[in-house]
């Protein structure tokens, strides 16, 4: 329960940053998707826990509430990214540093492709793919860059709640 609380608090903070702070920063063409990084946290630190998948889905749904009109698009793409990062976490040893950032980058790319897929299938005039071609890799790279800090933050939150 306390673990859920830690992720939920981090999710709310991430959403406030993504909807309030990042868009207000000047000269920032893309900003990191912190929700994706949190899904990565679940995939990497909780890759044997079925609750991680539900957590990733809810994080995506949360993102759906504040992005776009197609309900389920972000839920789908974030869950798909979670699956990709879980599979990597099962085969690679990673706690921090470059392997962690590489995993989040791959997760970001999978998320972008999943969003394109859903957008192409369900939206009438979706031009999601144009955005992904322009900014998809940059966004994945931005998420990878901030991933260690986000992991540190969630770990700190858990320690605060007496989990570690």
């Amino acid at each position, binding site marked *: 329960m306390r673990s859920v609380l830690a992720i939920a608090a981090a999710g709310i903070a991430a959403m406030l940053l993504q909807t*309030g702070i990042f868009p207000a920063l000047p000269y920032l063409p893309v900003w990191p998707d912190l929700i994706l990084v949190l899904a990565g946290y679940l995939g990497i630190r909780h890759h044997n826990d079925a609750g991680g998948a*539900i957590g990733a889905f809810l994080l995506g749904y949360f993102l759906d509430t504040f*992005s776009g*009109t197609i309900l*389920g698009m972000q839920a789908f793409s974030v869950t798909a990214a979670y699956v990709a990062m879980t599979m990597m976490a099962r085969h690679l040893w990673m706690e921090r540093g470059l392997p962690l950032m590489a995993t989040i980058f791959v997760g970001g790319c999978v998320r972008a492709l999943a969003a394109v897929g*859903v957008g192409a299938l369900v*939206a009438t*005039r*979706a031009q999601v793919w144009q955005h992904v071609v322009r900014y998809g890799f940059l*966004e994945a790279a931005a998420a990878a860059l901030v991933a260690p800090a986000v992991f540190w933050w969630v770990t700190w939150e858990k320690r605060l709640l007496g989990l570690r």
Partner: protein
Amino acid sequence: MDFIRRNRVFLTSAACLLLAAGLAFRTGRQQTRADRLGRFFLELMAPLQRSTAAVDRAVVSLWRSVIELVGARNENVVLRVRVQQLEQEMDRRSELDIENARLRGLLDFRRTLQGDVLTARIIGRDATGLARTLVIDRGEADGVVKGAAALAPQGVVGQIFLASRHAARILLISDHNSGVDAVVERTRARGIVQGTVDGCGLKYVKRTEDVQVGDTVVTSGLDGIFPKGLPVGTVVSVDKRGQGLFQSAEVTPRVDFDRLEEVLVARGSFTLLQEAPAAPEE
């Protein structure tokens, strides 16, 4: 049983993916949403977003002050203090003047509308770059409903597509899911304004119609959402390539969505008493 236990993560993930895909297919072609969980999240975040927006404004204001102070470094202490005091006062007044002008413009524009409209402050923007939406601090408790028109003194902003008790989200006309029935003011050529990657486009205009760069595009009033004659944007290029029946044009929206701080939201039907005033320069 053992198979389920061993693969529980992937089975749960598959179930979540199916659920998400199902949701996406169900809502993909709709311009409004009615999910309860989404309304709950929106309501939960509204007070936090309001606070963040206030902090954000304070930080931006502070940041501007810091930048302005850099130039005064080489001056002597007395002058520096004096200049600082004057600049702070000037900033405050200039900020107040700008806000005053903006609100006066909003009020003037409000007087040109017949119907029930209310002012809302923007408290958040789209969480990703995939879509173009805004979050406002008014919701169902204030009479804001899905499908309501959102306007600014410069022109059309968009329409409400999700509303919770105390907050709502606006789908901007520059979003690719948006569509506004519009006409070219000069020639009355009719088309649909849709969002594109870089702004807006006027589509489905008959090839025989006269559309030129610089033409103003206004609402036709035929979509039942926006009244006739509201400015939408200005034509910046016309594309007659291809062999189809239609031509299209690139349109720059009248409203600068990045600088927008307040909007007017319609509560019920409304009409324009007179032609919308010329857009004040931002």
